């Protein structure tokens, strides 16, 4: 704002200065022109006077007649310089009563000159002396009529004449009106009169003595307009700045100013003995050079431009600053958000420098390690560590510091209170653009409870599997021993009964196995150990085994496996389980005269398996629940009561964990077809703690 003020003031001042300068320039050119003009007028008068002196010189030497007179003017360059400007007259002094004789004499002397044919002195006055114009040099038509004119009859002229006798020099008359002599003429003018003496030495005499030698006068007349006007020869570029009026006293003798008078200048001009007043007015169409004329405008314009540019710069600076501020704000807000987020997570988060010195720790870290943030800053994570074998820390450090790679693992730590706890850690090295290590970020999660829970689950599963299975094993063994005849030969009926006991027991064993598998799967503890597997072999084995175990209900099992199947990186135990379940089901529910088709082929990125049977099918109303745990369709239950309802659930879980999909098509009493896919890229290894039970 201040700067704007400054610029505005500066612009104003410059404009003012420029305007004044321009005005000054204008004034200067006015002054120059005035000087030109007045000088020119002066030089005209000077010229007139000079000529008069020359004439005096010539005339004093000898008498002058019209021819000599004429020749004189031809020899001068007057007409070149001031064409038509001046009229020169040679005036005699004649007594009134000698006028007639004088006229005769002149007529006679100039009889060869037609102009003198009717030469006479006029007007006739009562003056004792007359001063007739004997010789006249003029180009002015009106003036040319004045041959013989008695200049004494003009008060203005005679006044000048008288005065010139007194001064012995040139004297300018007052304004003369030609009208007085030549009524048709509007011209006004001035006469400069000069006395002529008979001897050149007259000037050295006293006035009275001089006057005794007075013989004639010469005079020059100039038109007022001519005296003060027509200055185009002076002003070279014809771009006059001024117009002017000239006053002789109060009489306007020359008018130049048109319209309004502006920028008036007055000058007193003294020509010989007369004063004139010249009034100059700036011509409205006078122009300095375009540039000069418009300089003030330019200045203002420049000032405006500067202000605009200044504003522009200011705005862009402010905008940029604002943007920067906004960015900084956003960044700060984001940073605050992140800080709050990190502070608030329940996990332990620390940041260390490249040497492992802690520079930041969040509340989670406080809570988990038991040390306050203050206590942790400046120290190293070993503050709560040291519970693991040396090799562990070495490996960790090597990974993050030397290899600059993230490290994940589980370790035991010790809280400030001394309590030991289990933690899952992730340490990420942070590198700058050059790849130098600048920070580590360490995240720990207290998994003591999780681990404890896991342990409990493991123990429970172990216990459960053991406790449940042991009695079943006992029944199985004794049952089998009985059947084998180890306790003696059995009756048919006894055999029958024991057989039933055994079957029931087997079912129970299978149920327990399935339950165990499911609980293992659900606890996420099933291990997946993929290895390159020959699918053909696997499937064929499954079919063979099914045939054996289900031989009482053998259907015809057709197997169609694509040739040259690639080795699939899968966990054979798990996948075998899937095929086993599907094929067993197919056989079981198809009966003796049923047909089972097993097809395995590649389809796009997947291994596509189809198990088709001609069995009892799945009723539409129950199809939605077929993969549910413990679900058995009503018709299947009727057919045989032995199923656990867990097989398909398990199969689905395995297939989906492997990255595949399983679905089916079924029509009651016609048959069921199960489809499932396995990605050809194989299964991902998963560290688990359990395998499937058979």
């Amino acid at each position, binding site marked *: 704002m201040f700067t704007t003020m400054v610029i505005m003031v500066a612009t104003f001042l410059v404009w003012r200065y420029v305007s004044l300068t321009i005005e000054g320039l204008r004034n200067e050119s006015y002054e120059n022109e005035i000087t030109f003009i007045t000088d020119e007028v002066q030089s005209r008068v000077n010229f007139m006077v000079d000529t008069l002196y020359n004439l005096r010189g010539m005339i004093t030497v000898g008498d002058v007649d019209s021819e000599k007179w004429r020749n004189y003017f031809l020899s001068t360059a007057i007409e070149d310089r001031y064409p038509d400007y001046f009229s020169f007259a040679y005036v005699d002094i004649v007594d009134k009563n000698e006028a007639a004789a004088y006229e005769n004499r002149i007529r006679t002397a100039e009889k060869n000159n037609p102009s003198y044919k009717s030469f006479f002195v006029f007007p006739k006055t009562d003056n004792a002396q007359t001063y007739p114009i004997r010789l006249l040099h003029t180009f002015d038509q009106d003036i040319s009529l004045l041959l013989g004119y008695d200049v004494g009859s003009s008060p203005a002229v005679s006044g000048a004449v008288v005065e010139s006798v007194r001064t012995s020099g040139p004297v300018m008359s007052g304004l003369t009106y030609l009208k007085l002599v030549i009524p048709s003429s509007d011209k006004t003018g001035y006469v400069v009169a000069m006395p002529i003496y008979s001897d050149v030495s007259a000037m050295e005499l006293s006035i009275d003595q001089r006057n005794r030698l007075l013989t004639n006068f010469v005079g020059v007349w100039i038109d007022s307009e001519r005296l003060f006007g027509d200055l185009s020869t002076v002003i070279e570029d014809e771009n006059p700045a001024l117009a002017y009026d000239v006053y002789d006293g109060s009489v306007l003798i020359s008018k130049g100013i048109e319209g309004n008078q502006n920028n008036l200048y007055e000058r007193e001009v003294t020509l010989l003995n007369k004063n004139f007043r010249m009034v100059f007015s700036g011509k409205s169409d006078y122009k300095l050079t375009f540039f000069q004329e418009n300089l003030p405008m330019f200045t203002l314009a420049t000032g405006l431009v500067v202000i605009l540019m200044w504003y522009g710069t200011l705005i862009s600076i402010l905008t940029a600053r604002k943007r920067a501020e906004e960015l900084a704000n956003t960044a700060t807000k984001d940073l605050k958000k992140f800080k709050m987020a990190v502070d608030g997570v329940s996990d332990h988060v620390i940041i260390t420098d490249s040497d492992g010195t802690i520079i930041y720790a969040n509340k989670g870290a406080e809570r988990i390690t038991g040390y306050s943030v203050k206590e942790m800053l400046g120290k190293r994570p070993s503050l709560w560590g040291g519970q693991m074998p040396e090799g562990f820390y070495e490996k960790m450090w090597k990974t993050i510091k030397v290899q600059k790679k993230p490290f994940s693992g589980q370790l035991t730590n010790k809280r400030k209170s001394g309590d030991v706890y289990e933690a899952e850690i992730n340490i990420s090295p942070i590198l700058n653009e050059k790849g130098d290590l600048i920070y580590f970020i360490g995240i720990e999660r207290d998994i003591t409870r999780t681990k404890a829970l896991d342990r409990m689950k493991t123990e429970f599963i172990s216990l459960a*599997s053991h406790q*449940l*299975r042991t009695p079943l094993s006992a029944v*199985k063994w004794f049952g089998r021993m009985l059947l084998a005849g*180890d306790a003696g030969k059995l009756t048919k009926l006894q055999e029958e009964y024991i057989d039933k006991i055994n079957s029931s027991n087997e079912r129970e064993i299978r149920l327990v196995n399935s339950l165990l598998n499911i609980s293992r799967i659900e606890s996420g503890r099933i291990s997946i150990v993929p290895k390159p597997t020959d699918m053909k072999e696997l499937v064929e084995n499954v079919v063979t085994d099914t045939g054996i175990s289900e031989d009482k209900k053998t259907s015809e099992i057709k197997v169609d496996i694509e040739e040259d199947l690639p080795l699939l990186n899968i966990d054979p135990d798990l996948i075998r389980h899937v095929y086993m379940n599907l094929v067993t089901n197919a056989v079981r529910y198809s009966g003796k005269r049923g047909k089972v088709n097993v097809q395995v082929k590649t389809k796009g990125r997947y291994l596509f398996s189809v198990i088709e049977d001609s069995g009892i099918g799945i009723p539409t109303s129950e199809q939605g629940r077929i993969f549910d745990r413990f679900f058995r369709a009503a018709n299947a239950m009727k057919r045989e009561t032995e199923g656990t309802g867990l097989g398909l659930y398990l199969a689905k879980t395995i297939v989906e964990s492997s990255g595949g999909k399983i679905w089916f098509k079924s029509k009651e009493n016609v048959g069921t077809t199960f489809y499932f896919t396995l990605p050809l890229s194989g299964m991902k290894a998963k560290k688990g703690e359990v395998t499937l039970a058979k």
Partner: protein
Amino acid sequence: MKTLIVEDDSFLLSAYRLKLEGLGYEIKEALDGAEALKILEWWTPELVILDLMLPKMDGFDFLTKMKADDRWKNVPVLVASNLGQREDIDRAMALGAAGYVVKSDLSLEDLVTKINALLPKK
């Protein structure tokens, strides 16, 4: 064949005895690992059938201690347990078990077959 059976379930023990004695085995029983070690002190079997879930000292501990003792570290141990987890199997095998079966999965006959497979000489 002299066989030490380490098993805490009485039904299963009696099944073992019935079957194996019927086949001519000489059987000694221990209900836990500690008892088994004590028996080992004065009687060296040709085979040990070992359960894992045992009170006082479990099968793993026993196995470790047994294999640490030069006197009977070469006696083959068949682990017969109802734990079927890979971890358990691996651990037992790593401790020097000669074989591993899950009891509920096989009959005693199968067990005998397994024994025969483990011990060619009878």
